[in-house]
Protein backbone atom coordinates (compact mmCIF):
# COMPACT_ATOMS: atom_id res chain seq x y z
CA UNK A 1 0.00 0.00 0.00
CA UNK A 2 1.01 3.58 -0.60
CA UNK A 3 -0.52 6.79 0.71
CA UNK A 4 -1.46 9.32 -1.95
CA UNK A 5 -1.91 12.91 -0.80
CA UNK A 6 -3.70 15.67 -2.73
CA UNK A 7 -3.29 19.37 -2.00
CA UNK A 8 -4.96 22.63 -2.90
CA UNK A 9 -6.90 22.61 -6.19
CA UNK A 10 -6.42 18.85 -6.60
CA UNK A 11 -7.71 18.16 -3.08
CA UNK A 12 -10.86 20.11 -3.92
CA UNK A 13 -11.34 18.57 -7.35
CA UNK A 14 -10.93 14.99 -6.04
CA UNK A 15 -12.88 15.59 -2.83
CA UNK A 16 -10.22 14.03 -0.61
CA UNK A 17 -6.98 14.93 1.15
CA UNK A 18 -5.47 11.46 0.86
CA UNK A 19 -6.14 7.79 0.21
CA UNK A 20 -4.53 4.39 0.65
CA UNK A 21 -3.83 2.58 -2.58
CA UNK A 22 -2.57 -0.91 -3.37
CA UNK A 23 0.21 -0.54 -5.94
CA UNK A 24 -0.55 -2.63 -9.03
CA UNK A 25 2.16 -5.07 -10.04
CA UNK A 26 4.80 -3.37 -12.17
CA UNK A 27 3.84 0.21 -11.34
CA UNK A 28 7.23 1.77 -10.84
CA UNK A 29 7.25 5.53 -10.81
CA UNK A 30 5.40 8.80 -10.31
CA UNK A 31 4.45 9.11 -13.99
CA UNK A 32 2.86 5.65 -13.94
CA UNK A 33 0.88 6.43 -10.79
CA UNK A 34 -0.33 9.69 -12.32
CA UNK A 35 -1.50 7.76 -15.41
CA UNK A 36 -3.29 5.21 -13.22
CA UNK A 37 -5.18 7.96 -11.37
CA UNK A 38 -5.95 9.75 -14.63
CA UNK A 39 -7.66 6.56 -15.77
CA UNK A 40 -10.41 7.14 -13.20
CA UNK A 41 -11.87 9.70 -15.61
CA UNK A 42 -13.83 12.84 -14.73
CA UNK A 43 -11.97 15.33 -12.58
CA UNK A 44 -9.03 12.90 -12.38
CA UNK A 45 -8.60 12.82 -16.15
CA UNK A 46 -8.97 16.57 -16.35
CA UNK A 47 -6.69 17.66 -13.51
CA UNK A 48 -3.96 15.09 -14.18
CA UNK A 49 -4.02 15.43 -17.97
CA UNK A 50 -0.68 15.58 -19.76
CA UNK A 51 0.42 19.17 -20.02
CA UNK A 52 -1.37 20.23 -16.84
CA UNK A 53 1.17 21.72 -14.44
CA UNK A 54 1.04 19.10 -11.69
CA UNK A 55 3.91 18.68 -9.24
CA UNK A 56 4.67 15.61 -7.17
CA UNK A 57 6.54 14.67 -4.04
CA UNK A 58 7.69 11.25 -2.86
CA UNK A 59 8.10 10.91 0.89
CA UNK A 60 7.79 14.69 1.16
CA UNK A 61 10.55 15.55 -1.27
CA UNK A 62 9.87 17.15 -4.66
CA UNK A 63 9.99 14.38 -7.25
CA UNK A 64 10.09 14.24 -11.02
CA UNK A 65 8.06 11.74 -12.98
CA UNK A 66 10.82 9.14 -13.12
CA UNK A 67 11.27 8.89 -9.35
CA UNK A 68 10.59 5.32 -8.21
CA UNK A 69 7.81 4.49 -5.78
CA UNK A 70 7.57 1.53 -3.44
CA UNK A 71 5.19 0.04 -0.92
CA UNK A 72 4.93 2.26 2.14
CA UNK A 73 5.76 5.49 0.29
CA UNK A 74 3.80 8.71 0.61
CA UNK A 75 3.23 10.27 -2.80
CA UNK A 76 1.67 13.71 -3.14
CA UNK A 77 0.23 15.50 -6.17
CA UNK A 78 -0.35 19.24 -6.17
CA UNK A 79 -0.32 22.38 -8.37
CA UNK A 80 2.81 24.56 -8.64
CA UNK A 81 3.33 26.22 -5.26
CA UNK A 82 2.27 29.81 -4.57
CA UNK A 83 3.42 30.67 -1.06
CA UNK A 84 5.50 33.55 0.23
Amino acid at each position, binding site marked *: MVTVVYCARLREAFGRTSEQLALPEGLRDVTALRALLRGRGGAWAEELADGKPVRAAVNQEMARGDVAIRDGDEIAFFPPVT*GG
Partner: protein
Amino acid sequence: MPVRIQTEDFDVSREIARLREGNPQIGAVASFVGVVRDLNEGDRVSEMMLEHYPGMIEKSIGAIVDQAKSRWNIYEALVIHRVGTLKPLDQIVLVVVTSAHRGDAFAACEFIMDYLKTRAPFWKKEQTPAGSRWVEARSSDEFAAQRWS
Protein backbone atom coordinates in the same frame (compact mmCIF):
# COMPACT_ATOMS: atom_id res chain seq x y z
CA MET B 1 13.31 26.39 15.76
CA PRO B 2 14.43 28.05 12.49
CA VAL B 3 11.19 27.19 10.61
CA ARG B 4 7.77 27.99 12.02
CA ILE B 5 4.37 27.52 10.37
CA GLN B 6 1.66 29.25 12.33
CA THR B 7 -1.74 30.89 12.07
CA GLU B 8 -0.93 33.73 14.45
CA ASP B 9 0.87 36.94 13.53
CA PHE B 10 4.55 37.58 14.31
CA ASP B 11 6.46 40.51 15.81
CA VAL B 12 9.43 41.31 13.55
CA SER B 13 11.42 43.21 16.21
CA ARG B 14 11.02 40.47 18.76
CA GLU B 15 12.02 37.76 16.28
CA ILE B 16 15.14 39.68 15.22
CA ALA B 17 16.10 40.34 18.83
CA ARG B 18 15.73 36.65 19.64
CA LEU B 19 17.83 35.58 16.66
CA ARG B 20 20.68 38.00 17.52
CA GLU B 21 20.61 37.31 21.23
CA GLY B 22 24.04 36.81 22.79
CA ASN B 23 26.03 36.74 19.53
CA PRO B 24 28.37 39.78 19.34
CA GLN B 25 29.89 38.44 16.10
CA ILE B 26 26.76 39.40 14.16
CA GLY B 27 27.31 42.62 12.23
CA ALA B 28 24.40 42.42 9.80
CA VAL B 29 20.75 41.41 9.94
CA ALA B 30 18.72 41.23 6.73
CA SER B 31 14.99 40.61 6.84
CA PHE B 32 12.09 40.30 4.43
CA VAL B 33 8.40 40.57 5.26
CA GLY B 34 5.74 39.48 2.74
CA VAL B 35 2.34 41.14 3.13
CA VAL B 36 -1.15 40.48 1.70
CA ARG B 37 -2.14 43.02 -0.98
CA ASP B 38 -5.72 43.98 -1.80
CA LEU B 39 -5.18 43.57 -5.54
CA ASN B 40 -4.08 40.63 -7.69
CA GLU B 41 -4.35 40.19 -11.47
CA GLY B 42 -6.48 43.33 -11.58
CA ASP B 43 -9.08 42.10 -9.10
CA ARG B 44 -9.82 43.24 -5.57
CA VAL B 45 -8.83 40.67 -2.98
CA SER B 46 -10.82 40.72 0.26
CA GLU B 47 -9.36 37.61 1.87
CA MET B 48 -6.84 34.89 1.26
CA MET B 49 -6.57 31.32 2.50
CA LEU B 50 -3.14 29.74 2.75
CA GLU B 51 -2.91 25.97 2.60
CA HIS B 52 0.23 23.88 3.20
CA TYR B 53 1.36 20.28 3.07
CA PRO B 54 2.23 19.50 6.69
CA GLY B 55 5.39 17.48 7.18
CA MET B 56 6.85 18.36 3.81
CA ILE B 57 6.76 22.06 4.52
CA GLU B 58 9.19 22.00 7.45
CA LYS B 59 11.46 19.62 5.55
CA SER B 60 11.54 21.70 2.38
CA ILE B 61 12.16 25.03 4.09
CA GLY B 62 14.75 23.39 6.36
CA ALA B 63 16.56 22.17 3.23
CA ILE B 64 16.44 25.67 1.69
CA VAL B 65 17.91 27.17 4.87
CA ASP B 66 20.64 24.50 4.92
CA GLN B 67 21.52 25.38 1.30
CA ALA B 68 21.74 29.06 2.19
CA LYS B 69 24.02 28.22 5.11
CA SER B 70 26.33 26.22 2.87
CA ARG B 71 26.49 28.94 0.17
CA TRP B 72 26.94 32.05 2.30
CA ASN B 73 28.74 32.90 5.47
CA ILE B 74 25.76 33.36 7.73
CA TYR B 75 25.09 32.60 11.39
CA GLU B 76 21.36 32.01 11.66
CA ALA B 77 18.31 32.03 9.45
CA LEU B 78 14.71 32.14 10.57
CA VAL B 79 11.60 31.55 8.47
CA ILE B 80 8.07 32.12 9.78
CA HIS B 81 5.17 31.50 7.39
CA ARG B 82 1.55 31.99 8.30
CA VAL B 83 -1.27 29.71 7.14
CA GLY B 84 -5.05 29.91 7.38
CA THR B 85 -7.16 32.94 6.56
CA LEU B 86 -5.42 36.29 6.02
CA LYS B 87 -6.62 39.72 4.95
CA PRO B 88 -4.99 42.60 3.07
CA LEU B 89 -2.36 44.34 5.24
CA ASP B 90 -1.67 41.11 7.16
CA GLN B 91 1.89 39.80 7.33
CA ILE B 92 2.36 36.44 5.57
CA VAL B 93 6.02 35.54 5.77
CA LEU B 94 9.19 36.59 7.57
CA VAL B 95 12.75 35.68 6.65
CA VAL B 96 15.62 36.88 8.85
CA VAL B 97 19.30 36.16 8.26
CA THR B 98 22.25 37.16 10.45
CA SER B 99 25.87 37.37 9.35
CA ALA B 100 29.10 39.27 10.03
CA HIS B 101 28.71 41.50 6.96
CA ARG B 102 25.74 42.67 4.93
CA GLY B 103 26.55 41.02 1.59
CA ASP B 104 26.00 37.49 2.87
CA ALA B 105 22.88 38.43 4.82
CA PHE B 106 21.24 40.21 1.85
CA ALA B 107 22.03 37.43 -0.62
CA ALA B 108 20.99 34.57 1.66
CA CYS B 109 17.73 36.33 2.57
CA GLU B 110 16.80 36.82 -1.08
CA PHE B 111 17.83 33.27 -1.98
CA ILE B 112 15.66 31.80 0.79
CA MET B 113 12.68 33.87 -0.31
CA ASP B 114 13.10 32.99 -4.02
CA TYR B 115 13.39 29.29 -3.23
CA LEU B 116 10.49 29.37 -0.79
CA LYS B 117 8.27 30.87 -3.50
CA THR B 118 8.95 28.05 -5.93
CA ARG B 119 9.73 25.00 -3.78
CA ALA B 120 7.88 25.15 -0.48
CA PRO B 121 4.42 23.50 -0.60
CA PHE B 122 2.11 26.42 0.13
CA TRP B 123 -0.92 27.43 -1.94
CA LYS B 124 -2.99 30.59 -1.86
CA LYS B 125 -6.69 30.80 -2.57
CA GLU B 126 -8.04 34.31 -2.78
CA GLN B 127 -11.49 35.76 -2.42
CA THR B 128 -12.44 38.31 -5.10
CA PRO B 129 -15.78 39.95 -6.05
CA ALA B 130 -16.16 37.20 -8.70
CA GLY B 131 -15.70 34.41 -6.14
CA SER B 132 -12.77 32.42 -4.82
CA ARG B 133 -9.87 31.22 -6.98
CA TRP B 134 -6.55 29.47 -6.58
CA VAL B 135 -3.60 31.74 -7.26
CA GLU B 136 -1.61 30.66 -10.33
CA ALA B 137 2.15 30.24 -10.05
CA ARG B 138 4.13 32.96 -11.82
CA SER B 139 6.92 32.24 -14.24
CA SER B 140 8.72 35.35 -12.92
CA ASP B 141 9.08 33.56 -9.58
CA GLU B 142 10.61 30.55 -11.31
CA PHE B 143 13.09 32.79 -13.15
CA ALA B 144 13.98 34.49 -9.86
CA ALA B 145 14.82 31.12 -8.32
CA GLN B 146 16.75 29.90 -11.36
CA ARG B 147 19.27 32.72 -11.23
CA TRP B 148 20.77 31.16 -8.08
CA SER B 149 21.56 27.82 -9.73
